[in-house]
């Protein structure tokens, strides 16, 4: 007997979004579950952006710090290295030095860093604050002005500071990343609040809050799957934004990405273990529905790109 393919088609569709001017990235736009090319349209592949920061990555584990030795002292050199040597498709600049517990850098410092990095690269830029809700409001406002009309992503707007950041995005013609705390309803609510300000829903990316392999990945995985199912099956326009996975910072926080083989004998070689930790985290979240991923290690990125090649 022949096998009858149980195809499923849905009413909804994920918004397609782009970033950049010269060399654009485009993601989203699918009308089926992630990588279900056999039953619908998946016009774009997920995009991986390389993470850099405004200050040297002193707090990054050794395995990842050494990859950027010699270039990570300055964000412009670092960004160019990712673009020219690693063939990055996009850069995610984290303004971590602005955090009050770090260097507490000023909005002016942040604006200058953004301007300098933008001037140095032709690939799209994602501008991220330090996740300090009060400070981010001021920092991202200054960063938005510095990136005016450059078609960047700016984030992350959270429940406590979304008004300032969304307004800064609108005023400067940028796109916004909205982050909520691992809950489908909170994610929907924040999207609604932001669009109620007059922000175009097609210019929004959702970050349902990432977590690393073994450290809450199950929560992010299911929240993402549920958001995507709601977008497709219920045709819910408040949930049809593409999803961001902030993979690198979470994967490289795991003990398994840091502990030496002597400290963690069950884990084998540290370097491969750490790379696998980042690559598997990214893979799981792509399968759950993430279309834009922020990553750190070039070998992890390479493996993920090969995996996408096989899936598409």
């Amino acid at each position, binding site marked *: 007997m022949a096998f009858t393919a149980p195809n499923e088609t849905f009413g909804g569709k994920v918004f397609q979004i782009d970033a950049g001017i010269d060399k654009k990235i485009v993601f989203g736009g699918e009308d089926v579950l992630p990588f279900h090319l056999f039953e619908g349209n998946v016009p774009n592949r997920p995009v991986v952006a390389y993470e850099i920061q405004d200050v040297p990555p002193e707090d990054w584990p050794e395995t990842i710090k050494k990859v950027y030795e010699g270039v990570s002292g300055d964000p412009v050199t670092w960004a160019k290295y990712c673009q020219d040597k690693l063939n990055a498709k996009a850069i995610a600049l984290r303004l971590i030095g602005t955090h009050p517990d770090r260097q507490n850098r000023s909005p002016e410092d942040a604006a200058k860093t953004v301007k300098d990095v933008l001037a140095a690269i032709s690939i799209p830029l994602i501008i991220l604050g330090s996740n300090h809700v009060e400070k981010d409001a001021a920092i991202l406002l200054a960063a938005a002005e510095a990136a005016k009309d450059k078609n960047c992503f700016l984030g992350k707007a959270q429940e406590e500071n979304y008004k300032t950041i969304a307004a800064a995005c609108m005023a400067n013609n940028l796109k916004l990343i909205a982050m909520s705390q691992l809950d489908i309803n909170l994610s929907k609510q924040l999207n609604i609040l932001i669009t109620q300000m007059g922000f175009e829903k097609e210019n929004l990316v959702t970050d349902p809050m990432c977590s690393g392999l073994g450290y809450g990945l199950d929560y992010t995985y299911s929240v993402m799957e549920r958001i995507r199912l709601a977008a497709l099956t219920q045709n819910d326009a408040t949930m049809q934004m593409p999803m961001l996975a902030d993979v690198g910072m979470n994967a490289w926080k795991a003990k*398994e990405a840091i502990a030496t083989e002597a400290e963690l004998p069950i884990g084998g070689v540290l370097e491969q273990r750490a790379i696998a930790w980042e690559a598997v985290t990214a893979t799981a979240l792509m399968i759950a529905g993430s279309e834009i991923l922020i990553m750190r290690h070039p070998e992890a990125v390479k493996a993920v790109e090969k*995996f996408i090649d096989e899936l598409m």
Partner: protein
Amino acid sequence: MALSGVQIFKLLPKTNCKKCGHPTCLAFAMKLAQRQVSLDLCPDVSEEAKKVLGEASAPPIRSVTLGAGDKAVKMGEETVLFRHDKTFVNQCAFAVEVKDTMSADEINAVVDQVLGSEIERVGQKLRIDAIFVSNASGDAGKFEAAVKAIAAKAPEVPLILSTTNPAAAEASVKAVAANKPLLYGANKSNVDAMASVAKTHKVSLGVAAEDLDGLTELTDKIKELGVEDMVLDSGARTAKEIMRDNTYIRRAALKKGNKSVGYPVITFAQRDDVMLETLIASLGVMKYASIIVMSSIDRWKSLALFTLRQNIYTNPQVPLQVKQDIYKLGTPTSDAPLLITSNFSLTYFIVSGEIEGSKVPVRLAVLDTEGLSVLTGWAAGKFTAAKIAQFIQESGIEKEISHKELIIPGYVAILSGSIEDKLPGWKITVGPREANGLPAFLKARTN
């Protein structure tokens, strides 16, 4: 597909004889439909009704066991497509491939790796579950020798015997039949002979097709030949094919009641690029594979895959919990800070991660809140002054440290007074609300 009570009623004798303990046949049929009673209770049911009802009441994905004894792996019986709907039932098995063309030393090395692969993570014992022995040489004698050598060295490890040669299958299955290996390799040209070997030795049969149509034909035929326990290979090898076929198979079995594909699935992940192989195996973990075959099992790779499997198969309603205890982070001296938090695994992981990142050695008391976070635990009466005081007193920590100061999460600052009342002589300090405030908080104290 499940039958309704009325559909079942039509198949019963309709005599209302009450021998089954129910007042009427209809009442019995209703209970059958809810799967609360067994059809065996009816002494007069016809053979035809037994057949129809037996098929209808079978689970949509058949339960098949790989191996025998303590290390046997149960597969199948899945009920959903998404883990948020209901916990995935039987964790997928990881298998490593051993070829009969490898030298005895090479084979021994892999078997040693499998035997030494067991680790413990969040209270669960995890290991490489099975060895996939392939008849790469094409020689029946070589294959049998390899299978026997592996079984002698690792008698408890479940085996998958991969050959398309019925003579090789017969000899090797016979040698290890008591271990209940999976015989993999029934295809359209050898199906009768392979089914016969599986039937004779009462082992399950792996079905190797070229596509889903071919797979359906093969499983139907094998079932007719009298073999019920099967494992499916649709021929999918690339990530794209695995995604498609594994999704189709799971959906067809669960949502369309397609019995021809209602069996566990075997996914082949072998790649020359070991990092890519890890990601293909990850796809298998998430997308419905019951056995995942790999070419190597380095420790780093196993740890990542075990952890992913744990994340995917964990009960989405019951959070993973950490054992109540006082944990040392770094190497704390007797005057190092003592903090307390809840035993929700996510809370523990985030709090301990931030503390480890700060490089300040501390003792972290983890209170059993039944897996609730600090604030939810407080609201539910699981993270209370009385419980905290009792835990600290009974832990005997007072003898181990040179101070009496306990740092509590900022969200439960309200508890500080009542804990001080219940823990005489202790000073309660209110820490940051969020874990990410801990590094700055701890560093400020040491300066």
